[in-house]
C-alpha cells in the first residue's frame, strides 16, 4: 500500500532528471571530460593482461563496497612482481580502505587467500587524473602464468542524494556513478559488473545493450576485449532509505586504570548525510505514519559493545538521555541508542556514550611491558571514526603504539582525579574510518605496580597531615599579644578549669578511701578481724591527711582567683560536705569497731549506727551531685 505514493513521487523526480539530461548540464555528477580524452591517448604499460574480472558493487548502505575478482595473466616476456590498480582521483579521494587478497591455483586446490600490502604509488608516465595503488606479489608472476586476486575497495561519501532536498514524506533517492568498464592500466579480456541495490526501486540507470535489472540487482556485461584505461560512465539513480548516519567526528577515549578497569568514552557528532529536509517537520505525520512520513530519517542507532561491558551511560551536553536500551549476553553487549529527536536529512546531533570494560580482557604483559590490545573502530554499525585517544595511568613510561594502518600519532597529558604530573595520553588520528578498520591496535608501555599505591597513599598522607595540623593547632598558642587582658584572663580561666578538674580527682580519691573504710567494716562483720580493720582505719587516716595536704594549695588558688568566683561556693560546699561525711564515717567506724570489741549483738550495732548511716547516705548523694554539677559547669 505504500508503494504507489513512492512511485508517483519517484516518477516526478525522475522526469526532472531526464529533463535535465536533455539540457546536458543537469546531472549532478558526470565524469570529467578530461578523463575521456585521456583514456583514448594512454596506452598499456605492462605486459599483464586481465583475463577476467568480475566486479560487485554493494550500494545497500551508505558505504560503497566494490569487490573485484581478477584473474591476471602475464602475457609479456618478463616476470612481473607488482600489479597496479587505478582509480579516478574523484573516487580515490573517497577511498577509505583497500584490501587485496591473493590466492594461487584454481577451484578446490585453491590455497587460502593471503592479504597483500597495498600502497599508493605515482608511477611515471601515467595520467595525473588517476591514482594508482600497487600490490607487490609475494612471488613474481612468470611468463604465461596466471593468478587470482580479490580486491575490496571501500568508499565513503560516494552516493549523492538527488534531489538534494526532500520533504519529510519523500523517499531518499541517490545517484551513484562509476564506470561500466573496469578501469585498469591493463587490457581486460572479459569482464562483468553487478550492482546490488537496497531494493528494486530504481529511477533510472544508464542502459547498455546487455544490461539487466533482476530484483534488486543490476547487471552489466559481459564486455569483452577492452583496451587499457577503458572508461564508460554509468549512473544509477535509486532509492535508498538506509540510515545515513555519518559520524562527522568521533573521539574515543580509552582510560586505563590498573585497578582493573578500562573506561571508554566516545564523543559523537552525527549527521544525516543524505538528502536535506526541506519544509518543516510535522510531528503528527511522523507519529501516525512513520513508515512513509519519515522514511529517510533514523531514530535508532545500535552500538555493539564488547562483552562484559558495564556502567554504560548515554548523555550529551545538557544531560542524560533516557531513551536507550541494552541487551547483554556472554558474547556481546548490544546498546540501542535513540537520539533525542529523529534525525532527518541534514540534521545533526551530538552525544557521548561511555562504558567500562574489565581490564584483563584487553591488557596483557610481555617482556615486562604492558600491551593494550583493543579495536580501533567505533561500535556503531556502519559509521566512521576520526580521533582515538588512549589515556594511560599516571606514571607510565616508554610508550609506543602500533596500528595496522596509518594513523597520525601524538602525545598529550591529561589530568584526572589526584594526578600531579598527569596521565600520558596517546592520540591516534585517522579520518575516513569504515568498519573495515575495526582492527586491533596495540599500545606498549611500562608501568610499575607500585605506582598503583601512589594515590591511596597520597590521600592517606593528606588526611594524616590534616589531622596533624589540627593537633598542632589545638596545642599551639596563636595569641599575638601575650600581655593583653583578655589573653591573660583566658590563661587564668584555663588554669581554673584545670584546677577544678584536679579538685574533682581528689574528691574521687576521697570517695575511694571512704569506700575502702566501708568495705573494711564489711570484712569485719564477716571475719571479725578487728586488727585489720583498725589497720585500714590507720591507712585511711594517713591518706586523708595526704589528700588534704594536696588539696590545700588548690583551694587557696581557687579562692583567690576572680575567674573561679562562680564555682567557688560549690567547691566550698563540696569541701564542707566531704569533711562532714568524713567525720560521720569515722564516727561510724569507731562505733562499729567498739561494738565488735564489746561483742555487742548485730541488732545493737545496727541501731547505734542507723542514724549515722542515713546521714552518710544523704551526704554521699549530695557530694555526688555536687561533683556532677561541677563537671558540667566547668564546660
Amino acid at each position: 500500500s505504500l508503494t504507489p505514493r513512492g512511485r508517483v513521487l519517484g516518477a516526478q523526480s525522475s522526469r526532472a532528471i531526464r529533463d535535465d539530461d536533455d539540457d546536458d548540464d543537469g546531472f549532478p555528477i558526470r565524469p570529467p571530460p578530461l578523463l575521456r580524452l585521456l583514456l583514448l591517448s594512454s596506452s598499456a604499460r605492462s605486459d599483464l593482461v586481465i583475463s577476467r574480472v568480475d566486479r560487485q558493487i554493494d550500494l545497500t548502505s551508505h558505504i560503497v563496497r566494490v569487490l573485484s575478482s581478477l584473474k591476471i595473466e602475464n602475457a609479456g616476456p618478463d616476470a612481473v612482481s607488482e600489479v597496479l590498480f587505478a582509480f579516478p582521483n574523484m573516487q580515490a579521494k573517497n577511498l577509505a580502505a583497500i584490501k587485496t587478497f591473493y590466492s594461487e591455483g584454481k577451484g578446490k586446490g585453491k590455497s587460502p587467500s593471503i592479504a597483500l600490502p597495498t600502497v599508493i604509488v605515482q608511477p611515471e608516465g601515467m595520467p595525473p587524473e588517476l591514482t594508482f595503488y600497487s600490490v607487490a606479489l609475494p612471488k613474481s608472476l612468470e611468463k604465461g602464468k596466471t593468478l587470482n586476486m580479490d580486491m575490496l575497495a571501500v568508499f565513503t561519501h560516494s552516493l549523492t542524494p538527488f534531489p538534494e532536498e526532500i520533504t519529510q514524506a519523500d523517499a531518499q533517492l541517490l545517484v551513484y556513478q562509476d564506470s561500466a568498464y573496469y578501469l585498469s592500466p591493463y587490457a581486460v579480456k572479459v569482464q562483468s559488473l553487478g550492482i546490488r541495490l537496497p531494493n528494486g526501486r530504481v529511477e533510472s540507470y544508464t542502459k547498455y545493450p546487455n544490461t539487466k535489472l533482476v530484483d534488486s540487482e543490476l547487471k552489466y556485461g559481459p564486455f569483452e576485449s577492452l583496451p587499457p584505461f577503458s572508461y564508460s560512465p554509468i549512473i544509477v539513480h535509486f532509492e535508498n532509505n538506509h540510515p545515513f548516519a555519518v559520524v562527522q567526528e568521533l573521539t574515543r577515549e580509552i582510560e586505563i586504570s590498573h585497578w582493573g578497569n578500562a573506561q571508554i568514552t566516545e564523543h559523537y557528532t552525527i549527521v544525516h548525510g543524505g538528502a536535506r529536509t526541506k519544509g518543516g517537520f510535522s510531528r503528527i505525520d511522523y507519529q501516525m505514519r512513520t513508515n512513509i512520513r519519515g522514511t529517510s530519517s533514523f531514530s535508532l542507532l545500535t552500538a555493539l559493545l564488547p562483552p562484559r561491558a558495564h556502567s554504560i551511560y548515554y548523555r550529551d551536553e545538557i544531560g542524560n538521555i533516557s531513551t536507550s536500551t541494552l541487551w547483554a549476553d556472554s558474547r556481546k553487549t548490544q546498546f540501542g541508542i535513540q537520539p533525542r529527536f529523529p534525525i532527518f536529512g541534514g540534521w545533526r546531533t551530538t552525544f557521548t556514550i561511555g562504558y567500562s570494560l574489565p581490564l584483563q580482557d584487553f591488557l596483557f604483559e610481555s617482556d615486562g611491558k604492558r600491551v593494550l590490545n583493543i579495536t580501533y573502530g567505533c561500535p556503531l554499525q556502519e559509521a566512521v571514526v576520526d580521533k582515538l585517544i588512549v589515556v594511560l595511568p599516571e606514571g607510565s613510561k616508554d610508550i609506543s603504539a602500533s596500528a595496522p594502518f596509518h594513523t597520525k600519532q601524538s602525545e598529550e597529558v591529561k589530568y584526572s582525579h589526584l594526578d600531579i604530573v598527569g596521565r600520558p595520553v596517546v592520540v591516534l588520528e585517522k579520518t575516513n574510518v569504515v568498519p573495515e578498520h575495526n582492527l586491533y591496535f596495540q599500545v606498549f608501555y611500562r608501568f610499575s605496580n607500585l605506582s598503583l599505591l601512589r594515590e591511596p597513599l597520597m590521600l592517606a598522607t593528606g588526611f594524616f597531615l590534616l589531622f596533624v595540623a589540627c593537633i598542632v593547632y589545638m596545642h599551639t598558642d596563636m595569641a599575638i599579644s601575650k600581655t593583653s587582658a583578655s589573653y591573660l584572663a583566658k590563661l587564668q580561666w584555663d588554669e581554673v578549669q584545670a584546677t577544678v578538674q584536679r579538685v574533682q580527682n581528689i574528691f574521687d580519691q576521697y570517695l575511694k578511701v571512704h569506700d575502702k573504710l566501708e568495705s573494711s567494716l564489711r570484712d569485719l562483720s564477716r571475719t571479725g578481724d578487728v586488727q585489720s580493720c583498725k589497720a585500714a582505719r590507720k591507712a585511711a587516716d594517713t591518706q586523708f591527711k595526704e589528700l588534704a595536704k594536696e588539696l590545700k594549695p588548690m583551694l587557696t588558688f581557687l579562692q583567690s582567683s576572680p575567674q573561679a568566683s562562680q564555682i567557688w561556693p560549690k567547691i566550698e560546699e563540696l569541701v564542707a560536705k566531704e569533711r562532714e561525711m568524713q567525720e560521720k564515717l569515722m564516727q561510724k567506724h569507731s562505733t562499729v569497731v567498739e561494738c565488735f570489741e564489746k561483742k555487742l549483738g548485730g541488732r545493737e550495732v545496727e541501731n547505734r549506727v542507723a542514724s549515722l548511716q542515713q546521714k552518710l547516705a544523704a551526704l554521699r548523694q549530695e557530694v555526688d551531685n555536687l561533683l556532677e554539677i561541677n563537671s558540667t559547669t566547668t564546660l
Partner: protein
Amino acid sequence: MGANSASSSSSSSPLPIPFVPSLKTLRLKTKQQELLIRLSALALIYVLAFAIRLFSVLRYESMIHEFDPYFNYRTTLFLTRNGFYEFWNWFDSESWYPLGRIIGGTLYPGLMVTAALIYRALRLLTFAVHIREVCVLTAPFFAANTTLVAYFFGKEIWDSGAGLAAAALIAICPGYISRSVAGSYDNEGVAIFALLLTFYLFVKAVNTGSLAWSLASAFGYFYMVSAWGGYVFIINLVPLYVLVLLVTGRYSMRLYVAYNCMYVLGMLLAMQIRFVGFQHVQSGEHMAAMGVFFLLQVFYFLDWVKYILNDARLFQSFLKITLTCAISVGALALGIGTASGYISPWTGRFYSLLDPTYAKDHIPIIASVSEHQPTAWSSFMFDFHILLFLFPAGLYFCFKRLSDATIFVVMYGLTSMYFAGVMVRLILVAAPAMCLISAVAVSATIKNLTTLIRTKSKSPQATSGKGSASSKASAKASVDQSLPFQRNAAIALLIGAFYLLSRYAIHCTWVTSEAYSSPSIVLSARREDGSRVIFDDYREAYFWLRQNTPPDAKIMSWWDYGYQITAMGNRTVIVDNNTWNNTHIATVGRAMSSYEDEAYEIMQSLDVDYVLVVFGGVTGYSSDDINKFLWMVRIGGGVFPVIKEPDYLVNGEYRVDKGAAPKMLNCLMYKLSYYRFGELITERDKPSGYDRARGVEIGNKDITLEYLEEAFTTSNWIVRIYKVKPPKNRW
C-alpha cells in the same frame, strides 16, 4: 549474724559505688562525653542536611533545575572559562535581542563566584570534577553549612541544646529544602546561609560589643549583598531591631559599636557590587538604615552631653533643641533628596511586599509569577508542619527570658512571617527564623521535662535505703507523693514531643522526595501500572534548537523559557527571565495575542526566526502557554492598549473550546499551540482534538498557518517550534 545483716543493709546503697570510679576512669569525662555527643550529632545533622537534598539526583540525574538556575549555570560556566574580569565586563548579546544585557552589571555575582571558587579549590586539590557537579551540589553544601550557623545562632540566643535542635530542624525544613535541593542552583541557595550568618554575627557582635564580630557581620552582609536581592531585608530589619532596642531602653555601647561598624563597612562593601552600586545612599529602601545610623549618633551624643552637663533640667532643654534640629534636618534631607530625584522612591517590588494587593493592580509581570502569589494556609502547613505550632511556644519562651538576642530573633521571626504571608517564595526567608524559635521551644520543653524526670529518678534511690526516719528523708518522701503523677505526665509529654518531632522528620522526608525534588525540566508521570514515564521534551526541543538551527537564530518565546533556551539551546532569545524591560516583554505578549498577520509584522521587526511555545494538551501538562496566556494578554495590554483582555474572554470566562472568543480562537498563541492538534486523538472515547490539560475539545480544529511553518514538535508535543517564513517576494 545480726551484725552481718546490719552491715549488709547499711552497705546496700554504697555497694555499687566502688565500681563507679573505676568505670569513670575508663569512660570519658562527662564534659568530653557531652562534647563528643554534641559534635557527632552536629556532624550527623550536617550529613543529613546534605543527603536529604540528593533525592533529585538519585531519582533523575545530576542536572540543573527550573529556570533561573540555568542562567546561573551559564554564567558560572562563562566565569570558569573566561575568568573574572571577562565575566564582570560581559555583554551578553544572546539575550534580550536586540538590546542585549550587560551581565556583570545586572546580576548578583555571589553564587557564581562561590561555585567557581569551590571548583578552583577542588581542581587545586586534584579532583577533576566538572563545573556542573559543583553547581548542582552548591545548594546542598550551603544548606549543610546553614545548619552549623543555626547551631551557633541557637547557642547564642538560648543554649547549645537549642542550637542542636535548630540545626536539626533547619536541616530538613521543607520551606528551606524547596530552594536548596541538589540542582537548584539559585541565589537563594547560598543567600539563606549568608542571611543567617549575617544575623548570627550581628547578634554575636551586639552580645559581645566586639569590633571583630561586627566586622565579621559586615563581611557576612557583603556576601549576602553579592548573592541575593533579599539583602534589603537585612538592611531594614537590623535598623528596626536597633530602633526597638533604643525604644525599650536597651541601648548600650555594645549595640553602638556593633551597628555602626556593621552599617558603615557593610554599606561600603556593598557598593562594590555593581548591581547594587550607590543604592545604599540613593534608594528609598535603604534610607531606614541610614536614618537609624544618624539616630544612634544623636543618641550617643546626647548621652555624652548628659554625662557632661550632669544636670537634668539643662539636659531636658538641650534634648528638646537637639531632637527638633535632628528631626527637621533629617526630614529636610529626605524631602530634598526625594524631590530632586537623588533618592529614588520605593520600587514596585518593595511596595508589593508591604501591600499584597499592590502588584495585582499595578505590575502584572510580578503578579504573573506563581511564586509571588500570597501564601495559602496549606503551603504554610506543607512547608513548616509542626513548626507552625512550635513557633508561638518558642515566642513564649523567648519573651520569658528576654535578652538582646531573643529580641532579635523574635523580630526576625515576626517580620519574616509577615512577608512569608505576602509571597510564597519568602517562606524561605521565614524558615530559619521558624526553626530557631521552634528550637527554643523544643529545647526548653525537653529540658524541663527531662529535669523533672531525672530528679525523680534519683530521689527514690536516695530514699530507698533510709526509710523515713530523718526529717530530710520525710520531706523528700512528701514530695514523692505528688511526683509520680507529675513524672508520668512528664514522660507522656516527652513521648508526645518525640512523636511530634518524628512526624516532622517523616513529613519533611516525604515532602522532599515527592514535591521538591523534581527538576521541572524533566517531567515524570506514573502510569496506571505504577511504572514511571519520563517526558524529556524540553531538552529534546532545546537540543534540537542547538543542533539544527543556524547559530545566530533568534527565538521568540514567553519569557519563562528564555534562560533555558540560551543555556541549553545556545540561541539568542528575545526576552528571558530577567524581566528588566517590561516593554520588550509586552511586545512579545502582544505578538502572541495578535492575529497571525499582525504578529508577523511584530516578529519581523524583532528579527525573529523561530517561535517556541509550550503546549500540554497531549500530556495534560497544565503549566503550558495556553494557561499562561491571559498574563501575556495582560502584560501586553498594559503597554499596548490595542490588546484588551475582554476580547479573549467570554462573559469573563477563559475558554478554548467552541464557545471561546473569536479573537482567542485566531490569535497566534492559540494557532501555534493547536496547529494540527485537531487531527490527533489524545484519549480513547474522546473526539479528536481533545485537550487533556483543560479537558475540552478545542474550538478551532482547522488551523492553517500562513507566515509560519512547523519546524519541530517534541515527541509528547510539549514544546512546539515554528519557523518564521522569510518575507514573500514583492513581485
